[in-house]
């Protein structure tokens, strides 16, 4: 027997090790419980080193990006380069501090706006398995983290805590194939289950065919899953197809649109209202106001200029009808007539004294005949046919034939009865 065991010692040990692990596996699967102590050992051994590596990586990346890439630009001056390099290193340090402060500030603002109590955490590693979407964060049980807590960012939900350890926690991202959360659509209030697929997009499942979900619609957590409080953004609907037995809906998670470095873990969730309008994802750039125009406006036709100067009048660039209306209005004002107030049968203004001007200001029927622009009339009360104001020259006298043609076209029967 002894010689038999010696001869097959290696294969015997192999079978024992495999058998032990099979038993371990069976116990976990059958009881649906974890053998926590082994995980605690491993995570405790790995997370401190991972944290150090993350700190070194952050510093190195900042240094490389901000120093070495700009190093060549300073090659022209050796003396100044040393000085600039020294200042840059200082700048990098300060910039890193600023970035950290900005991120922390953004999270603080979000925390202050949200009723839920949250704990900030930094992502320090990802899963050791290539298929799953799990990350390690540096907040653990001492910070009050427990399994099942929701993880969010100001942009949306990120995932949930799978396991909490003394030195860190495992977070299952919403893109993980085993992730699921209850959501509700913002516009139509359709409920469904958001599931990860192992890809950057998620799937909205269990939405009946008769329900209406639109592309671009925002999804929020419904609170039904008892993990995510109601009202946190979950994603944007990207694709909607009819399939059997439910609709096939693909969702782009808003919380994972950017690289996640810092997250918030909800330790005490408070349900919120679903917003009536989706949040603006990107700020809109507003250009500064243009400077005051110092140039004098281009000379305008006499009638139009008079109309433009009057309050509420249309500018010179209006339509032909606007220009014509301005001409008649100026004539009416010159004769102390207010349009819209005269009774039927009262005396209308004398439209035979229309101002002279180019085509734009001329009455209908005369628009194709170009006329030289007269001096701008600055006072709307000044009669167009009266004496010109000081500093201006008198318009050329119109021939009688032209005036008669204008009268026939512009002030013909039916056109002069404007009250």
């Amino acid at each position, binding site marked *: 027997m002894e010689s038999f065991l010696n001869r097959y010692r290696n294969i015997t040990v192999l079978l024992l090790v*495999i058998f032990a692990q099979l038993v*371990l*596996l069976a116990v*976990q699967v059958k009881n649906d419980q974890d*053998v926590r102590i082994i995980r605690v050992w491993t995570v405790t051994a790995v997370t401190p080193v991972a944290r150090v590596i993350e700190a070194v*990586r952050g510093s190195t990346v900042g240094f490389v990006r901000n120093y070495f890439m700009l190093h060549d630009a300073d090659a022209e001056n050796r003396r100044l380069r040393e000085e600039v390099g020294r200042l840059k290193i200082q700048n990098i340090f300060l910039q890193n501090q600023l970035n950290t402060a900005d991120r922390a500030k953004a999270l603080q603002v979000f925390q202050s706006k949200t009723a839920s109590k949250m704990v900030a955490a930094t992502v320090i590693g*990802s899963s050791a398995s290539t298929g799953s979407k799990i990350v390690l964060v540096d907040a653990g049980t001492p910070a009050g983290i427990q399994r099942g807590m929701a993880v969010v960012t100001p942009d949306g939900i990120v995932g949930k805590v799978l396991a909490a350890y003394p030195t860190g926690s495992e977070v299952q991202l919403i893109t993980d194939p085993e992730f699921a959360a209850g959501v509700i659509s913002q516009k139509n209030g359709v409920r469904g289950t958001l599931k990860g697929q192992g890809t950057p997009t998620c799937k909205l499942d269990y939405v009946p065919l008769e329900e209406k979900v639109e592309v671009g619609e925002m999804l929020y957590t419904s609170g039904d899953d008892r993990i995510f409080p109601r009202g946190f953004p979950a994603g944007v609907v990207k694709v909607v197809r009819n399939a059997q037995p439910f609709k096939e809906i693909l969702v782009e998670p808003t919380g994972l649109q950017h690289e996640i470095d810092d997250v918030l873990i909800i330790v005490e969730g408070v349900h919120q209202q679903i917003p009536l309008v989706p949040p603006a994802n990107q700020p809109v750039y507003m250009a500064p106001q243009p400077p005051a125009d110092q140039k004098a406006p281009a000379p305008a036709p006499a009638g139009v200029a008079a109309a433009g100067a009057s309050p509420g009048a249309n500018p010179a660039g209006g339509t032909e009808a606007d220009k014509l209306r301005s001409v008649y209005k100026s004539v009416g004002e010159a004769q102390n007539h207010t349009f819209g107030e005269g009774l039927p049968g009262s005396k209308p203004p004398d439209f035979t004294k229309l101002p002279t001007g180019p085509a734009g200001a001329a009455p209908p029927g005369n628009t194709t005949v170009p006329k030289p622009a007269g001096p701008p009339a600055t006072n709307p009360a000044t009669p167009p046919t009266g004496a010109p104001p000081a500093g201006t020259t008198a318009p050329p006298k119109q021939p009688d034939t032209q005036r008669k043609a204008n009268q026939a076209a512009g002030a013909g029967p039916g056109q002069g009865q404007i009250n």
Partner: protein
Amino acid sequence: MDYSSGPLLVSQRERQSKKFRAWVLFAIPLAALLFQISVPRFFQFVGFLDMPLLVVVYFSLMWRNQLGGLAIGALMGLAQDSLSHDPLGMFGIDKTLVGYFAASVGVRLDVDNAVLRLLLTFFSYLFHQCLYWVMSHALLGRQMAFEGQRWLLLGLMNAVVGVSLYHFLDKLRESV
């Protein structure tokens, strides 16, 4: 028939000519685990690498000791299970068998040969993936797709990276 005279076979003297320093045995597996959890976060193109597997294959080949191979395979596998939230034992069983078989090959062949290392790593990766797929189906009831072509490609890429990695790790061995 004397097989030890072939170019790919190893002599008894060569088998025990070198060994690893103690810190290497601790640091390299830890580094492999840290690589697996840290680097793909920022460089997704290296997400195909199974660094713990490469380390298990290398140490098993170099030790030429089946018990040592299965031990490091089991430890690395369980550690990977712990960090991936798989049930403990999935990667453990997988890598235990890989370590044992790699060590069995190392006993008989000249594992310093680059081509042989390439082939061994390639087949180890395929075996690892297939076994994981079978166990996921049979033991956990998971519905995973059988991605044969993808595994072949990833196996080749892992093998190429593995040979380069082994060349670096060879320098950490010391003669005795």
